[in-house]
């Protein structure tokens, strides 16, 4: 028996009162066009929120919360649900007092206001942003019950801004310049070193997301966009860009965001986010409530290498694979939405998804990753996730043989 029916199967002979009785909303007018100048979700969707895990970090102002992947669809993450990660809380910046400085190995150091930035030619691009620590809890084995917690440090939005190349070019990068330091204006003055080659490739200085101004927690009034690379590099509240000839070895590229291997060595500058996917529905927070029959399995896949070429789904823990349907045009370095529809016969399932990107990389199993890296890497865990579905439709995060 399923957890609950939720289907229309149980109409009474006389008819479902939801139909035969006139509902209030069909009789009495609702709120007018002056009620919500800036709209919000229905009160019936109050459970669709970012969630944090208090014991993961020492303080909520240097912490993370997670995107409810199991509650959203398509490839665009609603701005209000994009996971947050900050190291000194949300800087609330007056855009009129914000400046962006470009200096170092340049022809002339420059300062821009927000109004200046908005006079450069603009572009709009959809990109995923994944924290390198996404799924980091799962290195040692299944930990948390829900894709919001295991995979919710990813989001995908449309950015509006200026090509970083345009802005660097305005200052004139000297030939000796090889690296870029990007710095935020928040209380952690977050910094990362970025190879100049990437900076001049597809990076953006973005002031918009999903059509409107950046949200405060995503770096309002301006952030760096570093497509396909780890989220920590996408400096929020961006105030400074320095050109140099070496990396700066900042705290976020030495103490953090380096990947400790089993042999005690640690990889540094592991920028690119590898090919990855996860089934978002059904999943532990979104069990099967409708019993046997047609079931929509869906999830997201992404890769820092560009487009997703294919996603395969297994319902028997990787014995057999079925190629899923990818919905939409497939934008490079953006989330891809996949679906696999099937008739559930009510028996136990082991759900897995496996993405293949356009560079030909295949999403590895967690055991493959561990065999090379051990279990202390924290970052870059893109292993295949397994959800165990019981006959009742309950779902759990497991590891299997």
């Amino acid at each position, binding site marked *: 028996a399923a957890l609950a029916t939720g289907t229309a199967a149980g109409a009474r002979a006389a008819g479902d009162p939801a139909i035969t009785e006139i509902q209030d909303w069909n009789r009495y007018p609702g709120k007018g066009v002056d009620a919500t100048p800036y709209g919000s979700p229905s009160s019936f969707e109050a459970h669709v929120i970012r969630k944090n895990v208090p014991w993961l970090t020492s303080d909520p102002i240097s912490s993370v919360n997670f995107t409810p992947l199991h509650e959203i669809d398509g490839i665009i993450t609603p701005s209000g649900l994009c996971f947050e990660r900050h190291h000194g809380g949300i800087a609330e910046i007056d855009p009129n007092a914000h400046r962006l400085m470009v200096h170092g190995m340049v022809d002339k150091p420059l300062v821009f206001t927000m109004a200046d930035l908005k006079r450069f030619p603009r572009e709009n691009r959809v990109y995923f942003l994944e924290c390198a620590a996404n799924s980091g809890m799962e290195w040692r084995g299944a930990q948390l019950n829900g894709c919001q917690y295991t995979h919710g440090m990813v989001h995908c939005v449309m950015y509006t801004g200026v090509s970083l190349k345009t802005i660097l070019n305005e200052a004139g990068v000297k030939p000796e310049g090889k690296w870029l330091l990007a710095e935020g204006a928040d209380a952690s003055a977050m910094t990362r070193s970025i190879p100049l080659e990437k900076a001049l490739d597809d990076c953006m200085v973005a002031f918009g997301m999903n059509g409107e101004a950046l949200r405060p927690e995503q770096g309002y009034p301006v952030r760096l966009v570093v497509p396909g690379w780890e989220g920590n590099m996408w400096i929020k509240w961006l105030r400074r860009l320095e050109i140099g000839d070496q990396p700066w070895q*900042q705290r976020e590229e030495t103490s953090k965001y380096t990947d400790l291997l089993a042999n005690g060595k640690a990889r540094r500058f592991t920028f690119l986010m590898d090919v990855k996917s996860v089934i978002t529905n059904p999943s532990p927070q979104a069990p099967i409530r409708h019993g046997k029959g047609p079931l929509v399995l869906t999830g997201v896949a992404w890769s820092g290498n560009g487009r997703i070429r294919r996603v395969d789904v297994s319902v028997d823990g990787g014995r057999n694979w079925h190629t899923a349907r990818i919905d939409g045009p497939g934008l490079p370095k953006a989330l891809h939405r996949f679906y696999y529809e099937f008739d559930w016969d009510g028996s136990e399932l082991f759900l897995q998804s496996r993405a293949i990107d356009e560079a030909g990389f295949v999403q590895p199993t967690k055991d493959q990753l561990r065999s090379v890296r051990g279990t202390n890497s924290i970052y870059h865990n893109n292993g295949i996730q397994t959800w165990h579905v019981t006959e009742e439709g309950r779902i759990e995060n497991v590891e299997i043989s």
Partner: protein
Amino acid sequence: GDGEHFKLGRVATPDELLAWDIDVRPDGLGLPDGRGTVAHGMEIFDENCASCHGDFGEAVGRWPVLAGGKGTLQADRPEKTIGSYWPYLSTVFDYVRRAMPFGNARSLSDDDVYALTAYLLYLNDVVTDDEFELSKENFADIKLPNEVNFTDDDRTKEPFYADKSEPCMENCKPDKATIKAHAAILDVTPEDAGEDDQPASGGIE
């Protein structure tokens, strides 16, 4: 630079560069004038830092550990500190100056940061003399022990990435799947987890 110029923005003044260009590199580039001793660093640390990081950098509660952990990098629970893990001293100076003390960043003088950095070297047994004075001049000479253990990104050489053949689609494993491990935090989603609901493997960093 090549390409189109828009003549937007204005030239930054020397004072502005001075105010914002606070980063420090391993080769010492960016270090300000200044100096500070281990002993003085201890005073500042005890007053401004120990409440979170502990008297000896061992940490209070879940705040970060700053000292100790040597020889644990291959252990089950590695303790990654300045002494056991960090490759460069400049990172300590740079980070403390930009972000600490947590809650009141940018409040320390350059001399204070030299003294704190000296004290953190002392807590990590990199220097042993509490008279030791760290300065712009001797800074770049000091090496941290774990620098040699950092390697470049070679993920594309890992066997499962190097092998780009088509993955198996049918009958890929002999037996029916069996569960090896359940989620450690069973049926406990964070919103109803108590203080003591902590994972087997510690938090994210």
